[in-house]
């Protein structure tokens, strides 16, 4: 093909030798373009099938009254209106997602950072510690939740130890309106901190020894070293961890679904679980799609704010 295409181009064009060279280049470029498109098409088809088409369909869905079966009717923005003004669970679900994120992200990053700093180069067996802290990340959520249920239920380990050792009855962690969300956050932090620990740990190892040495010679130690040298040096990694953790926490689903069932009431019902219930339990796919788009806008908005704010605190070496 590469050889034939320019030859055909020159053969069909009447005229002298002078314009032939640019024409040949043009024909070659055109042929390559077609070949390139040939190579790109499978990827583009995949992108279309698995990303663009579902996205377009979900927009269409959100503008319809779209039951699981039966007639679908176009309703414009009515689903969005229903969610924002009528649905009794939407605002509590949005609030729960935000509360979860506000509690989870800082705690996760602070603990992950503390662990990363703690498992420093001078610690013997740091590899083993890293694996230990990373195990909950790779363990299925279902298994994690089973263990935490055994810990937190009234007949569980925590209450058992508390009553037998101190005679103190602990609250009902999974069914008390004030404790259920805290329990979900604690379990999620335990399950998710290993990932950020690994990122931050890798970042700490990349901090040039010359910089820390220079700082030490200048008299920086302990907290001063951490705040003024280490944190600024690893700030791009902290930023990455923060962005990814915020996104994943706004999408939280499995932990509340399995640990508390979204209850008591709607105390631990986050937005994704609300979308899931609306679509697949209450059979209203249009309303669920509208909820998903509101969540999407929320995530994009929060991420955009984070990117804007990074200029103030993230330091890149140029």
């Amino acid at each position, binding site marked *: 093909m590469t050889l034939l295409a320019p030859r055909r181009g020159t053969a069909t064009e009447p005229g002298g030798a002078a314009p032939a060279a640019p024409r040949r280049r043009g024909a070659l470029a055109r042929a390559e373009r077609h070949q390139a*498109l040939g190579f790109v098409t499978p990827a583009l088809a995949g992108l279309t*099938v698995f990303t663009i088409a579902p996205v377009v369909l979900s927009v269409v869905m959100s503008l319809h009254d779209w039951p699981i079966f039966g007639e679908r009717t176009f309703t414009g923005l009515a689903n969005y209106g229903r969610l924002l003004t009528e649905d*009794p669970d939407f605002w509590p679900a949005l609030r729960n997602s935000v509360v979860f994120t506000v509690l989870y992200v800082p705690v996760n990053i602070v603990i992950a950072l503390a662990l990363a700093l703690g498992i420093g180069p001078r610690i013997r067996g740091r590899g083993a510690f890293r694996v230990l802290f990373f195990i909950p990340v790779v363990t299925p959520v279902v298994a994690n939740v089973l263990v935490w249920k055994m810990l937190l239920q009234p007949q569980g380990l925590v209450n058992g130890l508390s009553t037998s050792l101190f005679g103190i009855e602990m609250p009902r962690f999974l*069914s008390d309106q004030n404790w259920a969300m805290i329990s979900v956050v604690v379990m999620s932090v335990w399950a998710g901190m290993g990932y950020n620990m690994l990122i931050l740990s890798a970042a700490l190892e990349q901090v040039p020894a010359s910089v820390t040495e220079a700082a030490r010679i200048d008299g920086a130690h302990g907290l001063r070293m951490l705040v003024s040298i280490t944190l600024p040096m690893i700030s791009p990694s902290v930023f990455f961890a923060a962005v990814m953790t915020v996104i994943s926490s706004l999408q939280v689903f499995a932990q509340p679904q399995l640990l508390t*069932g979204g209850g008591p009431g709607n105390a631990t019902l986050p937005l994704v679980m609300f979308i899931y219930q609306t679509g697949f339990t209450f059979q209203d*796919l249009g309303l669920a799609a509208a909820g998903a788009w509101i969540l999407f806008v929320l995530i994009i908005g929060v991420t955009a704010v984070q990117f804007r704010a990074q200029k103030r605190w993230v330091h890149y070496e140029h």
Partner: protein
Amino acid sequence: MRISRAVGATIVGAFALSAAACGSSDSGSGSGSGSDGAVTITWSMWAGDTAAEEKLREQMAAAQEVVGDDIVIELATAPWADYFTKLNATLSTGDAACVTAMNGQRMAGYHQAFLPLGPDELATAGIAEDDYNAGALGVMGYDGTLYGLPYDTATMVLYYNADLFEQAGVALPTNEWTLDEFRSAAETITEKTGVKGFAVSLDEFQWLSLPMAYSGLQPVNEDMELDLTDPDFVEAATWYADLVTEAGASDAPPSASEVSWDANQFTSGSAAMAIDGTWNATTYTSGNEAFTGGVVRIPAGDSGPYGVALGSGYGVAATCEHPEEALQVLGALSGPEVQAVVAEQGGYPAQLDSQHLYAEALPAEYADGITEAFDAAFEGADSQRVVDAWTQVSEAFPTEIITVYTGQSTMADMLDKLQQRFGD
């Protein structure tokens, strides 16, 4: 600009490809044709564990013999808790299994998904309406039209741990028991043994049965309207929650996600009594548990005994490409051969002629107790009334009722909230 045309063509091509890919899923619809001409009919059913699935495979083998080699039955299962989510997902893509299991309480919300069964369809299936009593068949109908055939008929009963009764010196429950006797026994057992006398439930009829017996009312009234706030029903439901909050005769479930908590408490010996369906009678009372189990009908309230007939069955998906073959499979799965297997496995068959097989399959030493309880429980059992939103109501129960058990809200407020939400 020139490249944009090419890119445009590629995008269009890719869209066409994706449309073709999406479109191809429509042809599935739970059936297919093999190269040898045999039609494959998928049978979708709930099964919580391998033992349950094994039972279904035995039923499938019996049905396969009935339909012959021209039809191949394929089983697809999901646990009860996920079954309806999976069903919703397959229905939304038009890909529901040709023969789909449906729970009677939920038929109202799903009837559109099923092929209506008129005389012609029943003839193809080889089933007659007279094979059932009207109540049993009614659970698979909606608004006077039949959409499925029941494979079992069921009602809720009271299971008890005889060892704990003996330990507490309390007389065993009988089929004439009243709710006062029930509560008093639960309190005494709790006090004398340190084990809770009862386990309240988060799940639909497991919790509704006692309030219904107390008030003689269903949560859906005779005008077929959701009526959770009827003062008598509210009083009855409050009495039920008081078993936890006032009498201390039951613990509260630890979390709203623990829908089977009451059954687990009972089977683990952590509660002396629990309400569950007749489908668990052989499991709970035929020497399978570590304790001696027994079964009686739901204790009677002031207005006498009260229960509802429940049941599940199979229907043919409205989108099925091979309805004729699917009806034959439906007939085989609901017919006498499979009903005999169901009875052997401990299910109470829906077909009248097969029901005696249930008692015959029971171990002799347990047969009398179970048969007497079933006779008492099924006698005069009312047909269950449902509204279109019943699935939603029952799905909302666990997260709401747990707030009542833990004293964070009252039964009246909880029922009022659900009535406001689903009442229209």
